[in-house]
């Protein structure tokens, strides 16, 4: 098992004819993901990497039995694309697009909640269940199947961690990049609950960063978890008031500091690593041998 995606996952790529959409469609296909359809309005009938392109999501769903969508469309049109996927009955929507206006995301996340659709992102690298399915822009080659669940607000930092784990022979059940925006569809706590329920996941790495209070909220939940969790927080040396790349990575007033998050995690019995190597050390110690 794994969470959210597996070999039954049938993926639609929204914005498939764009540069990034086409590139990652190829990457996902190479990885073995069942990319079964694409959508670009006005380009229905074309093919990208052999994948049929439709004008609308509804048509793609009807014709190809899609159950998951990944969104690469430009920021101005991305909220509309996500809602189109929700309305077409897709249960998991992964939004890679960055720079979506926050007022639109407030509406989209509220709508996804009301309709019971799981949205991952926006501004996220997507997710991967190694050996089964890649729905995202993560570099598949560094992953290997195994017992560690990973959930992270960042992309590349996560690859570092995964690379270290894989190099040491520690594989991953599923790795979920939840995204670096302040308003996101799936948060730490949501993914932790899934990992807790997943029989294949034996330990979890949670990679947080400054900004917001999702790590603190997650810490509260971790107290009730049976599986070990190892934490990491980036941005310890970031100055307050400055947005560090991610729209969500900003310390404003007293909220969002690395100290607050590390303290909350420590309070929940979660060891917080100082370096990437240390994350791997802590996980190694906690995995059943």
């Amino acid at each position, binding site marked *: 098992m794994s969470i959210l995606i597996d070999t039954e996952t049938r993926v639609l790529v929204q914005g498939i004819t764009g540069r990034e959409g086409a590139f990652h469609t190829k990457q996902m296909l190479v990885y073995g993901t069942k990319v079964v359809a694409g959508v670009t309005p006005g380009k229905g009938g074309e093919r990208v990497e052999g994948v049929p392109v439709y004008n609308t999501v509804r048509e793609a769903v009807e014709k190809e039995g899609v159950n998951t969508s990944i969104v690469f469309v430009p920021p101005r049109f991305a909220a509309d694309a996500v809602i189109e996927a929700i309305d077409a009955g897709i249960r998991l929507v992964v939004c890679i697009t960055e720079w979506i206006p926050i007022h639109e995301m407030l509406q989209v996340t509220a709508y996804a909640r009301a309709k019971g659709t799981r949205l991952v992102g926006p501004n996220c690298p997507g997710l991967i269940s190694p050996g089964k399915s890649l729905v995202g822009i993560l570099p598949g080659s560094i992953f290997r199947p195994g017992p560690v669940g990973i959930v992270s607000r960042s992309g590349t930092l996560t690859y570092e961690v995964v690379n270290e784990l894989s190099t040491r022979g520690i594989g991953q059940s599923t790795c979920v990049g939840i995204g670096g925006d302040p308003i996101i569809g799936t948060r730490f706590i949501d993914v932790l609950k899934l990992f807790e329920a997943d029989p294949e996941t034996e330990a979890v790495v949670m990679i947080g960063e400054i900004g917001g209070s999702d790590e603190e909220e997650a810490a509260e939940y971790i107290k009730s978890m049976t599986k070990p969790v190892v934490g990491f927080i980036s941005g310890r*040396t970031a100055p307050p008031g400055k947005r560090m790349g991610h729209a969500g990575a900003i310390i404003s007033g007293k909220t969002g500091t690395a100290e607050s998050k590390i303290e909350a995690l420590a309070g929940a019995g979660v060891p917080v690593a100082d370096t990437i190597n240390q994350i791997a050390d802590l996980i190694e110690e906690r995995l059943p041998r």
Partner: protein
Amino acid sequence: MKFLEYQAKEIFAAAGIPTPRGKVAKSPGEARAIAEELGGKAVVKAQVPIGGRGKAGGVAVVADAGQAEKEAARILSMEIRGYPVHEVLVEPAADIQAEFYLGITVDRARQAPVLIVSSAGGMDIEEVAETQPEKVAKVWLDPLLGLLPYQVREACYRAQVPAELVKPMSALIEKVFRVFKEQDAILVEINPLALVGSGQLVALDGKMETDDNASFRHPDAKGVDEQAEHPLEQKAKELGLSYVKLDGEVGIVGNGAGLVMTTLDMIQRSGGRAANFLDIGGGAQAEVVRNGLSLILSDPAVKSILINVFGGITRCDEVAKGLLSVIQEMEVKVPIVVRLAGTRAKEGRELLAAADLGGVRLETAESFQEAARKAVELARG
């Protein structure tokens, strides 16, 4: 984008929210002229995109035009929490009967806009919320429904707004919400919202911050980019780079905010200090790498550069190409540490190995920690 008090007030006034009839002065003389126009008694306020200016001495109540000029001169020479004061707002002194707080912001945890009303205005709202919670009413709004009349009333009643003020306060709150929506704001705040002698509610202060992601909808918005206070940050903004100037000596280029933040943290762990945050982002092309590197090279504080890239959507060969083009075109005097991993890392490393580097000192590193350590060492010279 953040808006200075007077910029926010201009938008408030256009939305029908009463504001004092003040003007902005860039010099003590201008401040004097405005105070004269206002009849002498006035308030002179530093215009900076940050709170706490009152405690810092950035606000002065003056009795006449001469005093206005003097105080303006003092304030215009200040730097408040890192922000030099370029302008002061000169306004008539208000006849304040009562002060309220009114704000709408985005609550990240609840993923909804939140309306905050308090009958304890003029103070730090977070402090009031802690010490007198009964005086602060928070009402969360449904993003799909917007602000509803009942929510406005509820906020007023809960904040103990006097009965006779509920109607005018409600009308005002609706206008503030319209500003919040129309400007794609993430914060609109009036503190204090004053009841003045004439019985009118007036926005004595104004604060607004808008969502940069929605700037395409507001091409004419006039605010200040608080992320672009430093000249290098301004340059970065023009180049479309995600860059923050910091105090140290190791220039940083990385891809992904989390990775770059961690790189800064690692530099500190290795005993150095980063000169900047620079995220070349996902899917960066050679061009972006080139722009980023040129920017860092133009920073005299930079003693070494660490390029730390783990390829996901970014391809390491593109990073290498960008680096090489900079080396060919520019005079590179500081040593560079390069660490490439992930997508096309091998191709990238090969490109670097095969290239003619001129006299540039270019070191490669295998691991994150090794790269940070080398960059700090090289910065020490």
